[in-house]
């Protein structure tokens, strides 16, 4: 009897202690950025999201490791992070990490891994049980941007010209952009008018701003009146050029309208901050289904557009705003296949 | 301070040390003194390396002295650079002419003190006018707008003298002005010097040729190994005494040369033409043969194609047309290695850049022509110990002063570097030797040694092609003299039939005389 009480007591004590210890120490998180934070506002948002999640859960601030420019080192860094056993959850991003994270997840079955906006199926058919992957439907982004560009180039906006040409500019060539984003952009534009032509420029540098300006100049001379700028600070040169030439820009991933409200008409957004926050919070609550993949896009509200931006509301003609909302709804309802049929 | 100085110029206890490549210290001047009276022609004499040029370059502000004092016109003279020396009235004409070849005469004359308009812009026409006027006033005929590289050496030298005068030189320093000139040009120069003297200018004249001193100078100072050995009026000294002062000990340069029976042809040059970088034809259609047991000298004012000719023979320069044959085999397209294997050996004039590698050790320097042959290497493996022994043998045979054979050649003095080159070039199986200024920078004992060595080689049946600016060397050593003028051979003189005089060679060198085709065949 006595012993039972003692055992129960000890059991409760241990349980409470363990619970408090776990609760106190909590799961710790490390984030590996495959690249440099500065080049990519997306990563900055990701980190903010992760920090918010930790704050809400009352945990230590996540450790952020910048991968730098040596692509070959990311995998080793991920292994190092896993090998330390200091972190419960390792988060990393993009398609380029898919292969590595699967490999490392298999190496360290006790460690939990999360891949955000990367297509895990590039690496494996069978997702390791300690890995959760969240993929963004970048085709939704591309389609929205393309539809908007199409509407603008056909509109009566003061700087929209007669020619049915829209542009897209990227700092470098990426398979994910080439295979998904650009075709979706084209589809979006062609949904407005099948005669719209898409012109693309690649800068070949993430940092050469003047190159961005010069490439934009060439596009405008070709008759392009609106350019979608993919990530990369080098593209900032194009904003400046568009301002001088009196043309339009569509921002990508983050809302940059405030930089040049006259020029940047709209931005296709990715609410990755919320998404990262949600994923991590679920992970902290042990509700994240590890071993599976989630695909999020317009439907989940992760991909959206700057519908609420005051500058957008003020400067973009109402009929375009309405058409965009309509398009967004149809995307959410799955009525549109952004990549065509 | 300067009150007790009576001379126009007085240099006291000047010392100067150089740091050569690899930071070795070379003492050039160890307390040299010089006193010059106004309105005289003062000769500064000494062997090569005695410190004459260093002393004068210190005076002209080109070099900085380590210690010592200079009084000039009764004032203590401190010059930081050459333009300050010019401002004080000291102008120097260097042995190596300091003219920019692409610039015009006028541009060269005003270089450093270019007159400008208020905006700081140079008006070239105005300068040319000004320079022309100055030339006319000085009684000097030269086109101010001519480009310097079209001028002869003598003319270039005059341009430099004019520059010194244009900049207001009262004291004119001439550093070995006669070394590249012909007899006739030398006489011309001496006339000019006399004119300056009459104008009240003071001239310091550096030379190692005693005859010239006796001809023109009033006073002399003799330097030896960085010290002033003697000074005084020319008339107080006999020629023999002067030589003794210069050399330290009397050595006769007379050498016995017995004419040999001519052997077979070893090297023949056929219709050779060589162009230099600027597409200028430096050597025009030259043909000659070199025979066994013969020393052939090529005489000529420098810049008349001798350099290009030997470079073409040795393969450092590609000929435009023509052939070079060794033992009737065509070597025109061979690399220097191939030519060395055919028995050609070459002592070049430029011993610092071409004749040796200053960064490399002595051992590496002396095996450069044979490193790939056994026993210096076996099946591609270098035999380093053997190479070292070989180098040590050369060091002792040729009396090269070096701590050990792994030392950099750059740490050696000029004379020692020349010994390294001679040692390498003569310790090999050659039949043809091209010797360019072989005794430049050597002391008298070594010169004699080299002369004997060359004659010994000749007597062994080798052929030697000698290029030197020392006319005495040519006349003493050579069996045959070829004179080059503007890229052509204008004379083929046999020194064994009757002794040739300097004046005779000089006439050919200046292009005053020219042999006909039959004479040229010899």
């Amino acid at each position: 009897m006595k012993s039972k009480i003692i055992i129960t007591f000890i059991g409760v004590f241990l349980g409470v202690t363990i619970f408090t210890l776990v609760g106190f120490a909590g799961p710790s998180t490390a984030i590996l950025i495959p690249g440099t934070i500065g080049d990519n506002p997306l990563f900055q948002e990701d980190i903010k999201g992760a920090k918010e999640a930790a704050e809400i859960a009352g945990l230590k601030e996540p450790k952020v490791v910048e991968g730098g420019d040596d692509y070959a080192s990311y995998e080793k860094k991920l292994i190092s992070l896993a090998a330390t056993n200091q972190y419960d959850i390792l988060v990393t991003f993009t398609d380029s990490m898919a292969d590595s994270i699967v490999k490392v997840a298999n190496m360290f079955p006790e460690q939990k891994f999360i891949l955000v906006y990367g297509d895990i199926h590039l690496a494996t058919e069978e997702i390791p049980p300690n890995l959760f992957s969240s993929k963004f439907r970048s085709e939704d982004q591309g389609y929205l941007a393309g539809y908007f560009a199409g509407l603008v180039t056909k509109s009566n906006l003061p700087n929209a010209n007669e020619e049915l040409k829209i542009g897209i500019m990227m700092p470098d060539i990426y398979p994910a952009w080439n295979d998904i984003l650009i075709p979706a952009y084209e589809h979006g534009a062609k949904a407005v008018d099948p005669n719209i032509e898409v012109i693309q420029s690649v800068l070949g540098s993430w940092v050469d701003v003047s190159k961005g300006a010069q490439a934009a100049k060439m596009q405008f001379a070709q008759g392009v009146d609106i350019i979608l700028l993919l990530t990369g600070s080098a593209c900032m040169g194009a904003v400046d050029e568009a301002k001088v030439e009196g043309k339009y820009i569509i921002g990508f991933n983050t809302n940059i309208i405030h930089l040049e409200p006259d020029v940047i008409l709209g931005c296709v957004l990715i609410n990755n901050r919320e998404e990262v926050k949600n994923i991590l919070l679920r992970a902290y609550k042990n509700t994240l289904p590890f071993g599976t993949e989630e695909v999020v896009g317009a439907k989940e509200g992760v991909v959206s557009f700057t519908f609420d931006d005051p500058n957008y509301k003020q400067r973009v003609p109402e009929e375009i705003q309405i058409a965009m909302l309509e398009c967004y709804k149809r995307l959410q309802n799955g009525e549109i296949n952004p990549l065509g049929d | 301070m300067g009150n007790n100085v009576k001379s126009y110029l007085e240099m006291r206890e000047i010392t100067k040390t150089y740091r050569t490549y690899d930071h070795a210290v070379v003492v050039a001047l160890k307390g040299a003194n010089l006193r010059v009276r106004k309105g005289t022609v003062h000769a500064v004499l000494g062997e090569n390396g005695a410190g004459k040029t260093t002393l004068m370059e210190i005076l002209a502000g080109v070099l900085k002295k380590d210690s010592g004092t200079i009084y000039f016109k009764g004032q203590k003279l401190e010059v930081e650079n050459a333009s300050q020396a010019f401002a004080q009235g000291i102008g120097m004409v260097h042995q190596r002419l300091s003219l920019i070849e692409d610039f015009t005469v006028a541009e060269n004359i005003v270089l450093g003190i270019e007159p400008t308009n208020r905006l700081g812009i140079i008006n070239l026409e105005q300068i040319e006018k000004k320079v022309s006027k100055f030339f006319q006033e000085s009684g000097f005929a030269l086109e101010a707008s001519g480009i310097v590289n079209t001028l002869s050496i003598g003319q270039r030298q005059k341009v430099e003298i004019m520059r010194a005068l244009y900049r207001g030189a009262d004291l004119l320093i001439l550093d070995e002005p006669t070394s590249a000139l012909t007899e006739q040009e030398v006489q011309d120069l001496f006339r000019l010097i006399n004119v300056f003297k009459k104008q009240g200018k003071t001239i310091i004249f550096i030379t190692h040729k005693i005859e010239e001193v006796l001809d023109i100078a009033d006073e002399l100072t003799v330097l030896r190994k960085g010290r002033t050995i003697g000074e005084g009026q020319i008339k107080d000294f006999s020629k023999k005494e002067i030589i003794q002062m210069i050399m330290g000990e009397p050595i006769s340069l007379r050498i016995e040369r017995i004419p040999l029976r001519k052997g077979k042809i070893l090297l023949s040059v056929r219709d050779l033409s060589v162009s230099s970088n600027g597409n200028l034809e430096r050597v025009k259609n030259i043909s000659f043969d070199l025979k066994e047991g013969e020393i052939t000298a090529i005489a000529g004012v420098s810049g008349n194609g001798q350099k290009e000719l030997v470079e073409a023979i040795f393969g450092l320069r590609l000929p435009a047309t023509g052939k070079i044959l060794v033992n009737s085999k065509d070597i025109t397209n061979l690399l220097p290695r191939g030519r060395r294997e055919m028995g050609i050996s070459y002592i070049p004039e430029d011993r610092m850049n071409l004749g040796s590698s200053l960064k490399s050790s002595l051992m590496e320097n002396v095996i450069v022509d044979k490193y790939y042959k056994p026993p210096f290497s076996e099946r591609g493996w270098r035999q380093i110990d053997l190479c070292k022994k070989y180098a040590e043998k050369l060091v002792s045979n040729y009396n090269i002063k070096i701590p050990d054979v792994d030392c950099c050649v750059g740490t050696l003095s000029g004379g020692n570097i020349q010994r390294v080159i001679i040692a390498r070039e003569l310790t090999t199986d050659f039949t043809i030797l091209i010797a360019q200024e072989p005794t430049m920078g050597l002391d008298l004992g070594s010169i004699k040694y080299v002369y004997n060595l060359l004659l010994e080689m000749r007597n062994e049946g080798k052929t030697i092609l000698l290029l030197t600016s020392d006319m005495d060397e040519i006349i003493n050593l050579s069996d045959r003299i070829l004179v080059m003028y503007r890229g052509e051979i204008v004379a083929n003189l046999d020194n064994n039939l009757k002794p040739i005089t300097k004046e005779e060679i000089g006439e050919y060198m200046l292009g005053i005389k020219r042999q006909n085709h039959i004479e040229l065949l010899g």
Partner: protein
Amino acid sequence: MIIPLIDSVIYTMLAATTPVVLAALGVMFTNFSGMFNIALEGMMLVSAFFSVFVVDITSNLWLGMIAGIGAATILGLSIFFICHYFHAEIFIVGMGANLIATGLTTFMAVQLKGSSSLIFENVPKLRRIAIPIIENIPILRGLSGHYVIDYLAIAISVICYILVFYTPYGYHLRTIGKDEWVAKTLGISITKHQFISYLWCGFLCGLGGAVLSLPVGVFLGGPVGMANGRGWLAIAVLCLGQENPLNILAAALFIGATSALSDLLQVTTSLSPRLLMALPFAAALIAIVFYMAKEHKTSLGIKI
């Protein structure tokens, strides 16, 4: 359709020329003085960093430009002093300076803002200046609407030409370039001219760096850097232009034209954009081969 294209090709060509010609003129001065500076890339980079950084602090473009020039000059002078006082080989020091410029700017950017890329939002930016009349003439229009530094670059080329060929300074500089011995015997101080040439190089590369960052108000670090090979192209330009500033300008315009062409072909043809990126470098190499084959000019005054 064609005319706006020509306009923008001309415009882009001029814009791409500016940093290259400025750097090439800078290295021309150092080449004359016998201390060939290869750290152009590094000098442009530090200027790009410090100019935009100071503009962010002071909100004054001119101060920013001066800061950029100052930073480039300090780097240049450090090269000069290391070579002059410590007998280092200029070439190796130049490579070191390039590395340190990349390292330092990236490191400082990260320390200051936590990111290797500095994007300043509310900084004044260099404005474009339209030339009246010309801005309305087709084809010539490309000459208008550049930044003040672009116009300065053309003016500086002409000034350098006058400086090199019609002033005592230029004569002295060319004398040193052709024969240091002559300069020495005439009392032309070589060290002084080397020092001045490094000031020039700092000034010109500083301007060249400022034109990369000031118009957009960003500095982007990283291993390649904003200069993105322009410093190396400048050396190629010097090789083509030799010692004449106007020839250098012409050569830089040629390189600028290939860069503009590469951008143009990207948007008008289906050629691989990646391969087109090789165009300026390949064109520079081919031009040098043709030039050297034709002229048989001796190569640059560097002993390499």
